[in-house]
């Protein structure tokens, strides 16, 4: 069991000390998957023969097993994006993030469940069934990267790569008590990531610890000549600086993120986190982000517009299945987006939304003049029950209200476990950083985790 619960940094040490081989890790995980996955439905595809390359012993992630959200194309391995439409799709090429991880010695063992095309906050929009929350199987694991979060929480893979467009990494990480990083737009290549909303999609890790998050980011960050939106600047060495002292750092608390509708227990956990930061010598600063209230509507105009465009290629001519295989949520978003881009509506909706987006970005720019990071809840509530929100899309959309502004601004944010509710459901806290300041963000997140101490984990 120790092996399964071990962090990447621990596994690396064990492999280095010859205490365990990569094959043994993979074997133990495979056994665990066979036992747990039928209950949780975290993985849609299990790689039959995971390849461990012995020539990669000196690579940073040598022998570390991982899973990828099923929105990343993997050559020769089925990739569905959670949709029936791509049920039998075998990609012809590898996503950059997968290529980088392979080159770093990591071993792909499976593809994780998600809401089809990333449309959702609970994986209930997956055409292959919901992923159950490992902490309570009556509850959702969150979404859209729910499979990745559940897989890491239940030790089906030491880490996973999720995808965050409006909170899809952070919210399930919070619901499952794992660490999730939404990176700055442009830090990690999107090449080979099946697009939901191109100007918002980001590729990031879901891990057991903040340090692991930094170790994975060290591998996947950086410019890619196949993604014109990646930042040409050389990325930092994230894992190197996580132990830096954070005393005197300014933590901003935006009052707009603590409005009605926030679950009491979530608010309590956030309060506790603030206390921890105070204890560590950080300064707590009240800030205001007046445009926050427009984020949700802005997001749903931009994201649906872009998704209506991105999904146009699944026209029934290629990929073997017809447009009828789009689920209800995909159809809803395609129709909304098609409408907002139509002649006569474009200016009032899409264009207006892009202007508000700039204002939201300005809010953050102003805030980061005063503070180092911003602290907020990840989601207004802990995990909700399976089926609770399926008939009310708007209610479902609201569960991303606190994560969406970050995507609109293109800045990074970390979801770190803070504690549990009295019904033993995890609650995470959201730390938001300035653009391309992942180094500082992970440093602060790591120190917070240290101060918080061990939390229970799934057996």
């Amino acid at each position, binding site marked *: 069991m120790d092996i399964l619960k071990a962090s990447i940094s621990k596994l690396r040490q064990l492999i280095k000390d010859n205490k365990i081989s990569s094959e043994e890790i993979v074997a133990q995980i495979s056994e665990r998957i066979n036992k747990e996955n039928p209950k949780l439905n975290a993985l849609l595809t299990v790689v039959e023969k995971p390849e461990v390359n012995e020539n990669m012993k000196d690579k940073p992630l040598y022998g570390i097993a991982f899973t990828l959200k099923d929105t990343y194309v993997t050559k020769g391995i089925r990739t569905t994006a959670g949709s029936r439409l791509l049920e039998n799709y075998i*990609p012809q090429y590898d996503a950059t993030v997968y290529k980088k991880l392979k080159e770093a010695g990591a071993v792909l063992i499976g593809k994780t469940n998600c809401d089809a095309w990333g449309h959702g906050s609970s994986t209930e929009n997956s055409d292959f069934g919901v992923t159950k929350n490992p902490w309570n199987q009556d509850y959702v694991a969150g979404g859209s990267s729910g499979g990745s979060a559940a897989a890491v929480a239940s030790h089906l893979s030491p880490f996973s790569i999720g995808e965050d467009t409006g909170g899809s990494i952070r919210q399930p990480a919070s619901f499952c008590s794992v660490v999730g990083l939404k990176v700055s737009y442009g830090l990690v290549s999107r*090449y080979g990531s099946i697009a939901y909303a*191109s100007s918002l999609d980001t590729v990031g890790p879901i891990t057991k610890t903040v340090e692991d998050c930094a170790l994975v980011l060290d591998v996947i960050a950086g410019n890619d000549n196949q993604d*014109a*939106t990646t930042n040409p600047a050389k990325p930092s060495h994230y894992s190197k600086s996580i132990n830096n002292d954070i005393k005197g750092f300014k933590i901003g608390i935006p009052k707009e993120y603590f409005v009605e509708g926030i679950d009491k227990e979530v608010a309590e956990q956030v309060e506790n986190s603030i206390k921890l930061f105070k204890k560590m010598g950080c300064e707590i600063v009240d800030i205001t982000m007046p445009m926050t209230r427009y984020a949700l509507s802005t997001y749903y105009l931009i994201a649906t517009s872009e998704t209506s465009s991105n999904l146009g290629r699944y026209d029934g001519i290629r990929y073997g299945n017809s447009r009828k295989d789009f689920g209800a949520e995909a159809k809803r978003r395609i129709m909304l987006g098609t409408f907002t881009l139509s002649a006569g509506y474009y200016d009032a909706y899409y264009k207006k939304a892009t202007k508000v987006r700039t204002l939201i970005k300005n809010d953050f720019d102003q805030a980061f003049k005063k503070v180092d990071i911003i602290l907020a809840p990840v989601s207004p509530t802990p995990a909700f029950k399976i089926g609770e929100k399926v008939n009310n899309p708007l209610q479902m959309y609201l569960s991303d209200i606190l994560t969406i502004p970050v995507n609109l601004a293109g800045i990074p944010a970390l979801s770190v476990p803070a504690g549990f509710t009295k019904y033993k459901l995890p609650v995470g806290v959201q730390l938001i950083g300035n653009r391309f300041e992942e180094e500082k963000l992970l440093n602060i997140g790591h120190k917070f985790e240290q101060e918080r101490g061990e939390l229970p984990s799934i057996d």
Partner: protein
Amino acid sequence: MYKYQPVIGLEIHVELKTKSKMFCQDSADYFGKKPNTHVCPVCLGLPGALPVPNKKAIEWTILIGQALNCSINKVSKFDRKHYFYPDLPKGYQISQYDEPIASNGWLKFQISNFKFQIKEKKFRIHRVHLEEDTGKLIHSGSDTLVDFNRSGVPLVEIVTEPDFDNSDDVKRFLEELHTIIRYLGVSDADMEKGSMRLEPNISLRKISIQDSGFKIQELPNYKVEVKNINSFNFVKRAIEYEIKRQTEILEKGETPAQETRGFDSVKGITYSQRSKEEAHDYRYFPEPDIPPLEFTYKEIEDIKKKLPELPSDKEKRLIKEYRLKAQDAFILTRDLRIADYFEKVTDEFNKLMLVQDKASVDIEKQQSLGQTIANLIVNKRLSTSLDPEEFAKKAITSTVTYIADREKMDKAVSKVIDDFPKAVEDYKAGKTNSIMFLVGQVMKEMKGQVDANTVKKKLIKILK
């Protein structure tokens, strides 16, 4: 009283001959290649693939814009243009909507009218933008096959203002544009291969002339586009057909339908393809996968330095520098290779002449050396496939050597004047025809080794 005046604008697509495609690394040289062999995830629009713009294609589009006297926009962007068609694998074409690379230009050249009067005309260019080409459908029996080799090949769209009112000007404009594109070396502009495609839009404006002479112009409330024509003559014929067709409709008091039409080159007619009701809502929006393009003043100027001498400038220079007839300078400059060849041959000729007998340099005063060579090229008396030096040598033997023996010719002329006093007298008495007899005699004396024209001029001079 009233009349109808055609209002014609043009849309021209030119495929760039960059090494790789617009947004991926595949070879853009697709013509005649085995179907679906120049493809990759990007140009097949596979899930997750992303476009990365080709810098060369952007530079060349700027160059085209500059050659057409456009202003180059410091900020430009790509947009997605959505429509459904099996040859468009992403469901959208990456194009440029409201911020093209170049806009507001013009093209000016000389046109001779029906009275053979030469007039300079200027036509405005609305915009020049860059986009990607689509795949190609191949209909085979009851099947339709798709070849994606062409998918993603860089395509420049040039749009003029509706400044034309007749098909001759359109044809001349297109020929000039074609020549410019070929000069720039950015495209084969080969219409047979489809690397240059032409789309005129035509409507008629009613001009009422009141008794006072006052003209009232009405703007047409419709527009007919004729799509994808692959020859200048077809464009001319399509326009002429449309003017006739639309005039007939208007004469009946009706308005021609706003539509897209095709051109049947066999029957010489246009036919309806798509009506306004079926027109697309392309749902343009900025391509989120490609950051906006930004150019500094210096970058734009550096590209401008790469502009070659353009055909109309070269034409003017040849006239001035080589004292060519305008008509010949025009013909020579239609093909950059020929124009360059002409200058090389002239240069070689001069070099060879330097080592020749001094007497021979004094060729023909009435005609420049350049014009002599131009004649040989234009009248195809010597092949331009010859090496320029070879051509120059042959040019010397066929023009200069006759005159090289000027002394011999002078002797022969004197001899003939002495031998045929009757003919000389006849000529002096006004029988100008008898000069030809004398020319013949000189030619005979010199065993044909002389240019008849030169002899004739010499005789006229002596007998004056």
